[in-house]
């Protein structure tokens, strides 16, 4: 280990060496003088005889070093010094790169949290969900039982549904969201309880036989305050007693990625919550939201799918009334169900755009570095002449690039981690336990590091070619003003690339904005402004069966008495576009006798509404009448349909009134009115048929009361709540303006617009800096030439043309290229924004305008500088 003391003695060694060499040369010189040379000649001859002292000294020193590591460390220190000398450049470069890397890191974090990372469950890779037909999820309980018992591919199948209940721990009822799951749910998922125990299939002994609930960790923490004695406590769910039997472990978030349940109860007791027995009907396809299970080892996805389809075929043969042989599909259970494809498409599109931003930033920095290298060409030439190898210089330039990109990467990473943390606590839809489960982890840091290094290579390479080709003698003689001779230099190409990318991003933002505007202004079929929705659940308050209707009538009458209220109506379950929960009905033509699935005429979205609902919701009546209080259980069944239904079923609006249709259970229903079309499930759907039944003929405890009024919403909400308390103090209600509850439906478009908008702004900022950099550089290099032009009598316009002509021309080329690319990429954009068509003339005009403005802004300062040129001052300087 003889190198350890050497390190400490090294500086002494170097000093000794220098001294020795100096003395050697002196001695030689003395000898030559003794032979008769003049002192000056002798010194020169001695030095020549010695050889290249610098190189020799360096090689002697190298004996004591780890050469590569040490010289690299020297390069690092040199690079740091260089960067410190031009702080503006360094800061601009680091900021640009941090923006780009930060954006990519955020997008990767989102992708990792939503798509790459499987559910937080053991062996999640073999966990699959089944989907029957085109209605995502949603199966009936008897179907599930048959599927579970008859399949040969799954180890076991579990299923669950959502349960929205009022949970009362003692004397504070509040709304809670949970799952109602089959007995084998926890066993299928292979989860162990944290406290107490879970329920199992053995606990299921018929309807309402298992009044147990399991709390999730977060709910146990927030509502029960980590009370370890919670096991065995009895709580009230919708006024029915349930025993808490256990707490799920921390990190168990259920099987849907966006929604985390508060509790899990056995599905056999769901009947107590909703009234009736939803599990018994084979045709009730809303009994179960999802079925999941682990595939047996060795069973492939294709085999399982074939198996499922054969079970489906069996079911269709045995129960033709309730079944249509729509094929099953199998999807890896990663928490997404139906909107998985849309989310994946969106994230993929975002990743692409973020990658483009990084490329633009690299192009930007490449141009900056190339400019810097050109400025330092004299220094490089001198170094080459003094004996440095080109490899060494290239290495030093690359190290400089790596330092900048590591700094930029670190800053970008810090920003992205902060942003991702904030994102994971964000509840986009207040009230619903929806969140975006992203959490920064080691993969994120690794990705940021890789991106930083790759970018460093990309933009560090740019000046290298220049350096390798430089001929030191010419550069030293002529100075760095030697032109490179090409019409189009590398930096020009980079700038064009940057502008093109920016134009693509700006196009994407414009497209997103147009798409959003269009979807917002399309008709909803109701007027969400000036309405408040009162959410009620009479089941929670203990009303059942026959008590529901009279209470609802009293409720509506009471609300009407509040001053300022114009119209009041009621709709069962959820109104259109709220919480994406629309459900469909099966409708046959009047003449159909064989009510089997193959004869279905239309499958409209169906709602049960009270009289005055359409007036309260602002849905216009096109023909016939709406419901009256006389349309109750004793009278004939009536319905109101929308225009699309009328068109599909009867061919026209006028032809619909007075006609009959047949429901799934055979009842004949008369169409008494036609209303306008609207949106029911999502903003992006094509026109859908809708059927409205009278809520008086099918009462339901959970309903929304629609109150239309121009009064101030806060006051109105307070008045409404006061009135409700007068009616029944134990009835919990929610009051929200309809616009607020549309948040779920609007959420995807809003997200898309925000993301694209942000990316577009970043692209614009990058291009501004790029054009500004090139314009400023070109002006500053040509100040002398401009001064001469001015002195020779050039006018302002000509000066500007000379100074800025090139950057602006490049801007134009880049914009056109980007616009064309953006139009071609409309398919990619369509993933992100529904109905995105860049061929919209408004969009094209917008992009052109935006690029023009960008160009003006970016070249403003250099233009001023060019115009302010004072020939006399310039010509005096060098």
């Amino acid at each position, binding site marked *: 280990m003889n190198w350890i003391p050497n390190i400490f003695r090294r500086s002494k060694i170097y000093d000794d060496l220098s001294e020795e060499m100096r003395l050697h040369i002196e001695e030689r010189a003395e000898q030559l003088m003794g032979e008769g040379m003049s002192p000056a000649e002798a010194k020169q001859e001695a030095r020549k005889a010695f050889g290249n002292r610098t190189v*020799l000294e360096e090689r002697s020193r190298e004996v004591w070093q780890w050469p590569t590591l040490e010289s690299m460390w020297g390069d690092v220190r040199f690079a740091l010094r260089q960067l410190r000398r031009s702080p503006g450049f360094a800061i601009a470069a680091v900021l640009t790169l941090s923006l780009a890397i930060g954006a990519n890191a955020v997008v990767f974090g989102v992708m990792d949290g939503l798509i790459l990372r499987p559910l937080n469950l053991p062996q999640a890779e073999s966990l699959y969900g089944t989907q029957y037909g085109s209605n995502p999820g949603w199966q009936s309980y008897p179907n599930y039982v048959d599927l579970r018992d008859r399949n040969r591919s799954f180890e076991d199948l579990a299923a669950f549904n959502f349960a929205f209940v009022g949970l009362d721990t003692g004397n504070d009822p509040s709304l809670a969201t949970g799952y109602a799951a089959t007995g084998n749910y926890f066993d299928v998922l292979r989860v162990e309880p944290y406290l107490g125990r879970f329920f199992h299939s053995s606990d299921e002994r018929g309807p309402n036989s298992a009044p147990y609930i399991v709390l999730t960790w977060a709910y146990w923490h927030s509502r029960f305050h980590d009370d370890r004695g919670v096991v065995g406590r009895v709580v009230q769910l919708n006024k029915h007693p349930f025993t808490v039997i256990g707490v799920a472990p921390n990190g168990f978030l259920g099987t849907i990625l966006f929604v985390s349940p508060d509790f899990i109860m056995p599905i056999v007791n769901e009947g107590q919550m909703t009234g009736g027995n939803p599990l018994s009907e084979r045709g009730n396809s809303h009994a179960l939201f999802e079925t999941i299970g682990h595939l047996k080892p060795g069973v492939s996805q294709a085999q399982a799918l074939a198996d499922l389809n054969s079970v489906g075929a069996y079911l269709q043969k045995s129960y033709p009334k309730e079944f249509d042989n729509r094929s099953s599909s199998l999807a890896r259970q990663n928490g997404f169900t139906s909107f998985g494809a849309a989310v994946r498409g969106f994230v993929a599109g975002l990743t692409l755009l973020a990658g483009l931003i990084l490329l633009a930033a690299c192009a930007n920095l490449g141009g900056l570095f190339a400019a810097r290298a050109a400025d330092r060409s004299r220094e490089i030439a001198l170094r080459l002449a003094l004996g440095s190898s080109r490899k060494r210089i290239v290495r030093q330039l690359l190290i400089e690039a790596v330092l900048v990109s590591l700094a930029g990467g670190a800053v970008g990473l810090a920003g992205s981690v902060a942003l991702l943390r904030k994102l994971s606590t964000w509840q986009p839809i207040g009230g619903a336990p929806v969140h975006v489960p992203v959490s920064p982890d080691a993969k994120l840091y690794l990705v940021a590091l890789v991106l930083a290094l790759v970018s460093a290579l990309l933009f560090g390479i740019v000046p290298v070619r220049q350096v390798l080709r430089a001929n030191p003698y010419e550069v030293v003689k002529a100075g760095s003003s030697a032109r490179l001779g090409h019409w189009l230099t590398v930096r020009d190409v980079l700038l064009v690339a940057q502008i093109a990318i920016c134009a693509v991003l700006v196009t994407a933002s414009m497209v997103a904005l147009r798409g959003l505007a269009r979807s917002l202004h399309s008709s909803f079929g109701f007027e969400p402004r000036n309405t408040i929705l009162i959410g009620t659940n009479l089941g929670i308050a203990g009303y059942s069966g026959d008590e529901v209707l009279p209470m609802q009538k009293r409720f509506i009458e009471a609300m009407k008495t509040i001053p300022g209220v114009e119209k009041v109506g009621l709709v069962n379950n959820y109104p259109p576009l709220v919480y994406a929960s629309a459900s469909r009905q099966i409708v046959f033509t009047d003449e159909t006798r064989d009510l089997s699935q193959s004869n279905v005429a239309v499958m409209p979205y169906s709602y049960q509404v009270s009289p005055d609902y359409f007036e309260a919701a602002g849905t216009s009546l096109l023909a016939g009448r709406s419901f009256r209080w006389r349309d109750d259980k004793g009278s004939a069944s009536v319905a109101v349909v929308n225009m699309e239904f009328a068109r599909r079923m009867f061919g026209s609006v006028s032809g619909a009134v007075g006609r009959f249709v047949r429901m799934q259970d055979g009842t004949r229903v008369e169409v008494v009115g036609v209303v306008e079309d609207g949106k029911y499930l999502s903003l992006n759907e094509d026109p859908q048929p809708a059927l409205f039944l009278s809520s008086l003929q099918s009462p339901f405890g959970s309903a929304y009361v629609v109150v239309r009024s121009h009064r101030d919403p806060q006051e109105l909400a307070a008045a409404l709540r006061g009135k409700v308390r007068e009616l029944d103090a134990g009835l919990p209600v929610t009051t929200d303006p309809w616009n607020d509850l549309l948040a779920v439906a609007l959420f995807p478009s809003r997200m898309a617009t925000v993301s694209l908008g942000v990316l577009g702004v970043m692209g614009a900022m990058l291009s501004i800096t790029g054009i500004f950099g090139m314009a400023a550089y070109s002006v500053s290099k040509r100040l002398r030439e401009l001064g001469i032009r001015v002195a020779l009598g050039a006018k302002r316009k000509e000066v500007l043309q000379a100074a800025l002509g090139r950057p602006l021309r490049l801007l134009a080329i880049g914009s056109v290229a980007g616009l064309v690319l953006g139009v071609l990429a409309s398919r990619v954009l369509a993933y992100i924004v529904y109905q995105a068509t860049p061929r919209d003339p408004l969009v094209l005009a917008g992009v052109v305008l935006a690029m023009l403005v960008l160009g003006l802004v970016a070249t403003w300062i250099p233009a001023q500088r060019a115009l302010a040129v004072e020939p006399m001052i310039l010509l005096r300087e060098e």
Partner: protein
Amino acid sequence: MPVWKRPMRETTPRDLFPGALEMMILESLRRQPAHGYALVQHIQQRSNNLLQVEEGSLYPALQRLLRAKLVKAEWGVSATNRKVRTYQITASGLRHLEQQISSFEQMFEGIALVLNPKKATAN
């Protein structure tokens, strides 16, 4: 690689093989400790000026020998009252030198045999 200055001869000069310079330095120091300048003079004289070594190229070799502890160096004053750093061969340096010389002579004999069998030196 120590660089040859081109002497006024027709024969093309050749680079010294690696280790040759170190070997010659060690041999010179074996005879007598010396400082850098004196070493250069010594080598040039003893080779009948057949070897023209660039003076400075000695120093990397000296540093290598120093690091390998085959020589040791000391500051002192020369006979002509100059400040000089004198090098001295160490015991391990002597051993190393003997090894190098014998393997060099082997190589030399092998080459000579190949080039001209009759002129092989008797051993």
